[in-house]
């Protein structure tokens, strides 16, 4: 969005924050010098605001829940199997999918910056990039998951994946109970972003 209206509405322009002013100053100067393409910014923003998000990852998981052969391919070569559904690209060049089971719970982070599998999850939420999550999840995952409302039995093993290279991880949550009759699309609607990162479970079926 170019936000010409929201930021600079004709009637009551809102005073801009120092950061907003600097961003606007830099964009203006670079455009005037012919160094920046406005439409390129618009397109990139639009892609990550509208097209690419956790629904992609949800579709991948729902397919794997429905199709055992696809699930095998997904766990063996995440990048290729995800590409079968038409997803891929920047920050998803080397995908590994981690299966959560009753015995093993996987959760993903990036302690050094904000690495995240963009093609299947979109851009990361603020909490994923926060100093609190980055510092704590590799030290006290159960306490962190508790804050997300996720209580795992003591017997469940926890694996925290720190995305320190260009391998990108997505969690495949467990399929909720009583979903045998649901269609793939209905199943996808149960797969939340949090469950694809590993700080939540797939939603139970509404009764």
């Amino acid at each position, binding site marked *: 969005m170019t936000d010409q209206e929201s930021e600079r509405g004709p009637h009551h322009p809102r005073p801009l924050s120092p950061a907003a*002013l600097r961003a606007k100053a830099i964009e203006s100067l670079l455009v005037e010098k012919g*160094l920046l393409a406005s439409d390129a910014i618009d397109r990139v923003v639009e892609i990550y605001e509208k097209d690419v998000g956790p629904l992609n990852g949800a579709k991948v998981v729902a397919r794997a829940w429905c199709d055992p052969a696809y699930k095998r391919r997904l766990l063996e*070569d995440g990048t290729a199997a995800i590409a079968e559904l038409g997803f891929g690209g920047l920050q998803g060049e080397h995908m*590994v999918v981690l*299966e959560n089971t009753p015995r093993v719970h996987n959760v993903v982070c990036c*302690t050094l910056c904000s690495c995240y599998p963009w093609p299947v999850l979109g851009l990361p939420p603020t909490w994923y990039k926060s100093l609190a999550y980055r510092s704590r999840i590799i030290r006290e995952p159960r*306490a962190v998951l508790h804050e997300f409302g996720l209580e795992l039995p003591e017997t469940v093993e926890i694996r925290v994946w720190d995305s320190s290279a260009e391998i990108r991880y997505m969690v495949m949550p467990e399929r909720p109970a009583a979903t045998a009759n649901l269609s793939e699309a209905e199943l996808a609607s149960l797969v939340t972003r949090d469950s694809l990162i590993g700080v939540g479970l797939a939603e139970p079926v509404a009764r």
Partner: protein
Amino acid sequence: MDNPGDAILNGVHDIGGVDGFGAIHHEVDEPVFHEPWESRIFGMSMVGAGLPPITLDARRHQLERLTPVQYLSSTYYERWLARIEGALVETGTLTGEEIEQRSRELAAEPGRLVPRRDDPVRTDGIVNTLRAGRPTVRSIRQRPRFAVNDRIVTRNLNPHGHTRLPRYARGRHGIIVGHHGAHVFPDTNAHGLGENPQHLYTVRIAMRELWGPSAEANESVLIDLWESYLEKDKAAARSTPEKKVPSAKKVLAKASARSAKARARTASSKRSLATPLPSIKRALSGVKAKGKGARTVAGHALARSGESSGKPARRSR
């Protein structure tokens, strides 16, 4: 910014295990961008911001070079803004005074519009790059030094400059659970010193190895580390890994500050860390214990990227 003299050592971005940042604020129905300017800075960063082309590793290091106070006190996109502004000034693309002056003008004239300049050809190129990605896997002649199930020790490295070996994971014992082929080495690539691809491994390190007896026995961190970050664990050949997690520590673990309520219900079950874990094997399936010549997760990526190896190494745009 690519001058190694400007490189920083052990920056505050390397924050794993640091305490004091409080609870995690989980926003419901969070928008992709909270303010319009954040989306403009994101977009600018993705299209190059009028800067000379640099690698993603170099961009990461630019963020790491923010002063500790600025890094810790800024929001995420404030850091991106500071990175772009710093790089524009350092490269002489814009002057600090120009930016200051324009900011003052815009504050005085809130209705003033950002000028537009469209470049559809360039825009298509950028969109194509987003769709295609920029694989970092490379084909190298050197054989991998480690195989799945090898026991390793991470090296205690403190380089002046960019590295992806975080402090918490230095000097720790672990086990190789995955091999991803060779990937561009960020420690040199970030400083314009070449890609120098090295074999990349997923290493599993037990939580107790990282944090001592107060950590849980059945938790671990899995982290992707380049070959030069690792050494063979020679001691592991002579002793069993169970000795690193003495069961007496369980008493200490129980007594320590773990939130009592969260864990009162079931007695913690001990699990040998030496036992290969079935679902890791599944997650990284295809990786055989014998390792070296085995097909790996990234073996596929390697084969695929071979077809498109004309891809430029740099994240230029």
